């Protein structure tokens, strides 16, 4: 083939590929934050590969720890770690719920229900383009995972919620630090309500706090209100670090989330709707 035709062929392929992807980008605009089927399919194909790699490393590590390195101590330690993990979650969820409960029987029933509704999961990956936006966990629809389920870290602090795509053994978590996330929260002391949203850079902002509001202060804890219908009430979110007045109607309230992305390995999935759990 002559050189000019060969070069033209290359340019045609490049143009076709760019055109295809521009169409792909533009058809997603009306979808908003809903994932396209094409994206879900690619994710479904490749997420098991990532899951497999992590499982392989975990198995190799497990063989080493279990057979060569203090077998009994390891199993005891593991058991205690698991127990502590569930206790932390229970403690956190119960702290707020106990205020509303009256009898001992109610408490026992609630305890049992909560324990059954916690599923431990491992983070197997983070968002490639911005790790403060989303994470991928190793539990999927086969484990009972559904969209909008709440995710907590090992200390019971809010991490985010399940969003699309949920595959058989993996699912995506939208982190509260994502700029498209929204959580109904209130301040611990004076119960000032607001909506918490991320900035995509590791921080969160408490939105719609009127400039005249004086009831919030730096260092105050932020807790979920449960008013949004997605997140259970009483979950610890973070701490107010700065409050700045601006020329707009609302104050700029910066919140530092409690969960640490660098140590986000094991997470807890709350398997029930906020209304069902208590």
């Amino acid at each position, binding site marked *: 083939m002559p050189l000019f035709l060969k070069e033209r062929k290359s340019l045609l*392929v490049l143009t076709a*590929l760019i055109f295809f992807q521009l169409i*792909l980008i533009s058809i997603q605009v009306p979808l908003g934050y809903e994932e396209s089927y094409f994206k879900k399919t690619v994710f479904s194909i490749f997420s098991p590969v990532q899951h497999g790699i992590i499982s392989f490393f975990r198995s190799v590590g497990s063989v080493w720890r279990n057979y060569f390195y203090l077998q009994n101590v390891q199993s005891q330690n593991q058991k205690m770690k698991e127990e502590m993990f569930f206790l932390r979650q229970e403690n956190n969820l119960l702290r707020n719920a106990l205020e509303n409960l009256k009898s001992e029987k109610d408490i026992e029933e609630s305890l049992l229900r909560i324990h059954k509704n916690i599923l431990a999961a491992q983070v197997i990956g983070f968002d490639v383009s*911005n790790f403060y936006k989303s994470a991928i966990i190793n539990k999927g629809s086969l484990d009972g995972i559904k969209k909008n389920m709440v995710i907590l870290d090992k200390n019971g602090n809010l991490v985010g919620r399940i969003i699309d795509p949920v595959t058989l053994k993996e699912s995506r978590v939208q982190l509260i630090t994502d700029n*498209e996330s929204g959580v109904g929260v209130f301040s611990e002391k004076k119960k000032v309500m607001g909506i918490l949203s991320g900035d995509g850079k590791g921080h969160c902002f408490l939105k719609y706090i009127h400039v005249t509001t004086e009831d919030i202060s730096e260092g105050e804890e932020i807790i979920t209100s449960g008013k949004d219908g997605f997140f259970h009430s009483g979950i610890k979110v973070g701490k107010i670090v700065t409050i700045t007045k601006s020329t707009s109607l609302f104050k700029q309230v910066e919140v530092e989330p409690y969960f640490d992305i*660098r140590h986000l390995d094991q997470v807890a999935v709350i398997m029930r709707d906020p209304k069902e759990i208590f």
Partner: protein
Amino acid sequence: MKDFIKVTLGIIIAFFLYTILNKISPSLIQLFNVFSLVVIYFAIEKNEIFGACLGAFCGLIQDSFSLGVFGVAGLAKTVTGFTAGYISKKVDVFPLLRSFVFIFVLISLEFILWAILYSFIFSGSINTGRGLVFFQPLGTALVGSLLIFLLRKIKGNNP
């Protein structure tokens, strides 16, 4: 068939590295663009069409593991793959220093293109990871040039 196996293996290795880097520290995935390395390597080895197609494929995989618009990384990597294949046919990019500069320029170009598209679509600034992302061209070029150098050495020893 041989090419298909090679490319599949390349993508799996990129995936493997991406998962491991992610596990060590999420910020490391901002420092090394492993998928782009695969695209550039095969674009140099084959041609610009192969580079563009592989760029589109790897970019779409990367996009599927990201929250947001599907196709942004795909588009940026398509251009990277094509440019890598096109230039490497005109200039010898295999010497160590030259491959370093070549990858550095390509990754910088891809980053600029991706940042423009991202900012345009999301109407916001990108997460720079406290400036770490600006070292991505340097980090990727360093690893990429060494990798190409080593692979050429191995190939030279086993013709």
